[in-house]
């Protein structure tokens, strides 16, 4: 099946930046209500608002886990504000496969969690 490309399966089986993060400055969690899967993101943000490190925790399907894994790669070293510039389309492009309507929530779980983190810092 095309959905399960090598890169997605690779991120699923060997996720990048997975685990807790000591001294995290922001931690947020989001739940996919359709399947109950959850993703936690932990950010270590410097005084310059740069993401020095970001990790994720959670169990879920290949799409949600690979998406979160790729997202942590993408965000590392960027400013927290750069989360704002990542559109849903960018996430689909990052995944590189066709996302059916049923899997949209899975694909976007990581980025929705990151957006929640950004919102938290704005409060």
């Amino acid at each position, binding site marked *: *099946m095309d*959905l*399960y490309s090598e890169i997605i*399966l690779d991120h699923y089986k060997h996720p990048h930046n997975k685990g807790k993060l000591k001294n995290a400055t922001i931690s947020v969690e989001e739940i996919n209500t*359709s*399947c*109950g*899967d959850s993703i936690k993101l932990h950010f270590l943000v410097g005084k310059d608002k740069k993401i020095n490190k970001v990790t994720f925790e959670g*169990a*879920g*399907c*290949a*799409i949600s*886990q690979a998406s979160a894994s790729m997202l942590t790669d993408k965000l590392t070293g960027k400013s927290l504000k750069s989360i704002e510039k990542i559109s849903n389309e960018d996430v689909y492009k990052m995944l590189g496969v066709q996302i*059916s309507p*049923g*899997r949209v929530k*899975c694909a976007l779980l990581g980025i929705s969690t990151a957006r929640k983190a950004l919102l938290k810092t704005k409060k």
Partner: protein
Amino acid sequence: MLDPQKIKKEFPIFNRKINGKSIVYLDNAATTQKPKVMIDCLKNFYENHCSNIHRGIYSLSEEATEMYESCRKKVAKFINAKSEKEIIFTKNSTESSNLVAYSFGDKFVNAGDEIIVSIIEHHANMIPWQELAKKKGAKLLVIPMKNPAKKDYSLDLGAYKKMLSKRTKIVAISAMSNVLGIKIPVKEIIREAHKVGAKVLVDGAQSAAHTKTDVQDLDCDFFILSAHKMLGPTGVGILYGKQELLEKMPPFLFGGSMIKNVTISKTDYAELPEKFEAGTPNIADVIAFEKALDFLEKVGLKNIEDHEKKLIKEAYRVFSKYKEVDIFLPENLESFGGILSFNIKGVHPHDIADIFNAENVFIRAGQHCAHPLLNALGTNSTARMSFYMYNDFEDIYRAEKALKEVIKIFK
């Protein structure tokens, strides 16, 4: 004996091809497919009999009323109720359980009382009671499974008996689990509850289309079901209640159709069953539901039960060959209906369902509206195949093909 190939021909949906391939429908616990006679009846109502019921003094309305009431008689016969006055039409079994939780709960449940449910309940028969307990300051007690870690999913009836007391006002229990397919010994549960004066609601949403229901033999106080899980249309549910109980209960919804006489200061309510059917009901779908029940009777519930037993045994044999597969069934399948929940090591059920979908094998993945049960099983979600009268061994082998594909992709 029933012939699934012959039965399949009565269901237009199985003419459908997706990507050139026929479909294998294994999500019958969510909703069943619909026979042509039922679909034709819906169309016929709107084309030839469309009118409101219980009020018109003209032929169309009289016909529609007669057709609507004819289904009520049919349902009463189907579950062996004493009288059709005991049959209330709702929109689904969730509304039926809510009706009882609100109406019975309002009148008979007080602070300090106890309500008993089981761990296997669908949210439809769990949350209304949780809410009622919260509202009234009553306590919600939950019957556990015996030993789910060792695949003994039967309910711990010893624990149940200890829970019962004079404080118990109602026991709400499913006749069959929508996740595990296990059949619950409701008759024994009812007998024990009655000893302490508690009432019992049986959730038959999962059982009613697969095994014979006899409410008088069970001696349950309430029985609920959903038409769409038994070949009928969506939007119709049934509440059966013993007449003397329903008569004591206050109405649930208020408005037209459920009244005798209205003044600005006071309203006298209608007799049963109208007292509980406020507003224009789902006339067309109720009428079509009768055709679904006719179809079920023609095939025969005993035949359906036997057929599903064969299917579940074959599915278990086929799926248990694969060491990666964990099946939520014991080896002894005697008290189980046609439902097989499973997980594949290292693969999320959503991915399983997606790969099955690519083979046109439609299964359910997730938490099946039963979060407390999934927690008790120690899993976040499962993949589920649920069978019905039109499924055959070929469907199981198509599912096996999809299973092999999952294992190949994630190896």
